[in-house]
């Protein structure tokens, strides 16, 4: 119950948490915006307050500068001074100095009036009507006496004027005193007011500061929260990455498993395909109509192609590419057909010497639907196609171009594409190619050179090393048939001895042998003294796989033949290595004239019994390779060599089994076979080719209750001589 409810909660929680970060981010950024705005406003307000303070103080300073209060008292003082001067002048009207002093005093008094002008003092004082009237009366006084008391007037002052002026001034003095007192009172109030204002400003400032602090704190908190969220998200991302990595590892493991499966499957496919190829080859030796022959060729070519290309590629997931030219093959390029795209090969320079490296470029243009750049970019990726919908319309797995490009790059070239939607595409294959000498000249056997000794010298001395007598014999027959001199060795040690005694031109070396195996023997061979250490070694093995191939190359082997060695593969290999020497004139023409008559013993077999044990595939292969006579000799030696063992074993088996098995005696008492019924196969040799050779033996016999029942005639009685 607990587990169930827990998982339920998780499930409910999941979608919420998926949507939450977005909402959270949104609200957080909203908060940040609001706080930022508030901060901005607060700062603006603080600035305004400060500015106001500054302006208040500076205005006060400018006008306070000359001390306004002092101006009022000065005015009153100068009025008193003027009154004094008037008194002096009235006492002695003829005294010029007294009059001059009076005029000076008058001017000084007059000069003081503007300093208490409301325009100047109004900033700090509030003038009531009373004070304005006082100022107006002073101005009127000055206006009246300027014509007599001013310095600019030089007339002698009359006592009456002085008397009048004294009286007028006396009246002003009281009011001036009041004005001074009032002026004194106002600034005091102003100061108190200003202090109050400053205090208020300071309070406002403190409030703003506190507000700013709070905002900053809030800001910090939001930032912290954001930071936390960021960290969480980072953590989540890390977890996600880890999960993705795990998932990727799983996917890769699955892919690996698939590859292994494919490799195994293709290997399993190889077995029946080998059989099928044998059958097809055999069919060729039967009289057929032209059409039948044509069909047969198509079938055989398809099977070969599948076996050699598709399966190899599938098995390893990669491909070793060996570029070689063989006789009779000429590069050709041209229109693939009336419906196919046009191909235009364009070498950079058409006339060049052999050995020169050329860049071959083949453009294939079409007028199809074309592709946009994005599609082109995806085009060469595995399992990708033009687009999902075209895969419906045009089919395909999306592997072709990837494989093509991989092959082109393996050869040092490339494949590219230029395309425009709706206008078609141009696929370009670029390859570096090296021109070689004309093939026919290099490969044509010099048959005109006649005498026996030179012919003999052109025969290759070859050494075949195999622990199994049948395989030894098969190879020796095959190679002798080609006109070479073959010596044999049973194991690695014997091979080494032989190579030391008389180094052959080439060694065919079985890889798996008891005792000193092929790999070890090759390694030792490479350590021998010259020229023995330079002898090329070709591996013979049933393991057709790349890893094995690499392993034998590492051991110092030079080439590789898959068992059973097909005649054309063996001859191609020799031609590759020895050129014209690989095809000496046939020293032992082996016509089929000795055919069935040469095999009296085998003719005594009961047909049904023989059919039961024939492996027709292998018989076809061998018959083609050796000719009828050669195949007959192979059989003879095979039986002569192994008959003792088989008799012994078939007797043992007959004793163990209720029913006589397919391994038994022929009516004349000769033991026909079998070898593989009793002898366990080495696991590594449990391969298609190996089974045919080792199991049925080179004679092409097979055992088992499911062996084919229909055999019209012995396989070696071919209808016509085999053309090699």
């Amino acid at each position: 119950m607990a587990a169930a409810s827990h998982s339920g909660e998780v499930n409910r929680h999941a979608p919420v948490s998926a949507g939450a970060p977005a909402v959270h981010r949104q609200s957080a950024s909203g908060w940040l915006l609001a706080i930022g705005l508030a901060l901005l406003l607060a700062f603006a307000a603080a600035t305004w307050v400060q500015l106001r303070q500054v302006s208040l103080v500076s205005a006060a300073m400018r006008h306070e500068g000359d001390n306004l209060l002092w101006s009022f008292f000065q005015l009153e003082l100068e009025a008193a001074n003027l009154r004094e001067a008037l008194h002096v002048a009235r006492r002695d009207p003829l005294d010029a100095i007294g009059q001059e002093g009076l005029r000076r005093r008058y001017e000084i008094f007059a000069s003081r009036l503007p300093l208490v002008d409301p325009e100047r003092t109004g900033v700090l004082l509030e003038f009531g009507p009373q004070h304005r009237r006082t100022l107006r009366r002073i101005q009127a006084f000055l206006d009246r006496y300027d014509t007599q008391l001013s310095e600019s007037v030089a007339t002698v002052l009359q006592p009456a004027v002085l008397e009048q002026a004294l009286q007028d001034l006396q009246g002003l003095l009281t009011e001036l005193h009041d004005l001074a007192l009032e002026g004194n009172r106002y600034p005091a109030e102003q100061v108190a007011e200003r202090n109050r204002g400053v205090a208020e400003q300071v309070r406002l400032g403190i409030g703003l500061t506190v507000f700013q602090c709070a905002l900053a704190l809030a800001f910090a908190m939001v930032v912290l929260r954001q930071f936390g969220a960021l960290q969480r998200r980072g953590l989540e991302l890390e977890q996600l990455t880890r999960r993705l990595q795990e998932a990727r590892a799983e996917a890769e493991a699955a892919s690996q498993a698939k590859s292994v499966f494919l490799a195994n499957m293709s290997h399993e496919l190889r077995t029946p395909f080998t059989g099928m190829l044998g059958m097809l080859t055999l069919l060729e030796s039967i009289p057929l109509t032209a059409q039948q022959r044509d069909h047969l060729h198509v079938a055989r070519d398809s099977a070969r192609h599948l076996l050699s290309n598709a399966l190899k590629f599938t098995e390893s997931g990669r491909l070793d590419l060996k570029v070689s030219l063989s006789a009779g093959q000429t590069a050709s390029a041209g229109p693939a057909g009336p419906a196919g795209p046009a191909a235009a090969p364009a070498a950079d320079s058409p006339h060049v010497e052999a050995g020169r490296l050329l860049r071959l470029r083949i453009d294939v243009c079409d007028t199809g639907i074309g592709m946009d750049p994005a599609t082109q970019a995806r085009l060469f990726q595995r399992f990708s196609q033009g687009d999902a919908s075209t895969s419906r319309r045009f089919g395909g797995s999306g592997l072709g171009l990837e494989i093509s490009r991989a092959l082109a790059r393996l050869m040092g070239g490339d494949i590219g594409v230029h395309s425009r939607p709706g206008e078609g595409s141009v696929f370009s294959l670029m390859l570096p190619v090296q021109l070689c000498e004309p093939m026919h000249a290099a490969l044509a056997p010099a048959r005109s050179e006649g005498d026996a000794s030179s012919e003999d010298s052109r025969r290759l001395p070859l050494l075949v090393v195999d622990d199994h007598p049948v395989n030894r014999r098969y190879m020796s027959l095959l190679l002798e048939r080609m006109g070479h001199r073959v010596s044999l060795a049973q194991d690695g040690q014997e091979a080494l001895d032989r190579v030391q005694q008389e180094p052959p031109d080439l060694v065919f070396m079985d890889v798996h042998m008891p005792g000193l195996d092929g790999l070890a023997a090759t390694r030792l061979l490479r350590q021998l003294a010259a020229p023995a250490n330079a002898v090329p070694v070709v591996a013979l093995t049933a393991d057709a796989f790349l890893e094995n191939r690499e392993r034998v190359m590492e051991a110092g082997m030079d080439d590789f033949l898959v068992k059973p060695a097909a005649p054309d593969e063996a001859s191609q290999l020799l031609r590759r290595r020895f050129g014209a020497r690989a095809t000496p004139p046939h020293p032992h023409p082996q016509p089929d004239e000795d055919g069935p008559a040469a095999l009296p013993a085998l003719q005594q077999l009961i047909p049904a019994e023989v059919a039961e044990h024939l492996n027709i595939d292998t018989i076809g292969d061998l018959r083609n390779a050796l000719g009828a006579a050669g195949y007959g000799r192979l059989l003879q030696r095979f039986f002569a060599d192994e008959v003792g063992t088989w008799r012994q074993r078939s007797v043992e088996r007959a004793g163990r089994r209720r029913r006589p098995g397919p391994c038994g005696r022929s009516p004349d008492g000769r033991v026909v076979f079998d070898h593989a019924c009793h002898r366990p196969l080495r696991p590594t040799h449990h391969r298609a080719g190996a089974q045919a050779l080792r199991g049925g033996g080179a004679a092409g016999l097979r055992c088992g209750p499911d062996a084919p029942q229909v055999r019209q005639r012995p396989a070696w009685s071919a209808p016509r001589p085999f053309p090699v």
Partner: protein
Amino acid sequence: MPQHTLTTQTPWYKGPKKFTGPLLRDVLVAAGAQGDALTAIALNDDKVEAPMEDVRRFDVLLARLLDDQPMSTRDKGLLFIVYPFDRHVELRSERYYSRSAWQLRRIQVK
């Protein structure tokens, strides 16, 4: 004596005014006055003291013309000590306003 012109705001006039006259520094040098402080005495016997440093540091004007017109006693003439208030912000304070003596009658140097 070289005449200088100084346009500046003052506490005593509305708006900037143009003052013209010799530098006080030049006048004192011409008079051969030496000392650490000078005392300006006005027509009404107001006195104000200023360090000689002021004269050295600032281009203090002994103004005779206000807006190109001779100053009468009534216009705070005939002579007016004017500091270049607008040129130096530190001058715009009570200390230097009070040292700007007008209706100047006499200068004593000690």
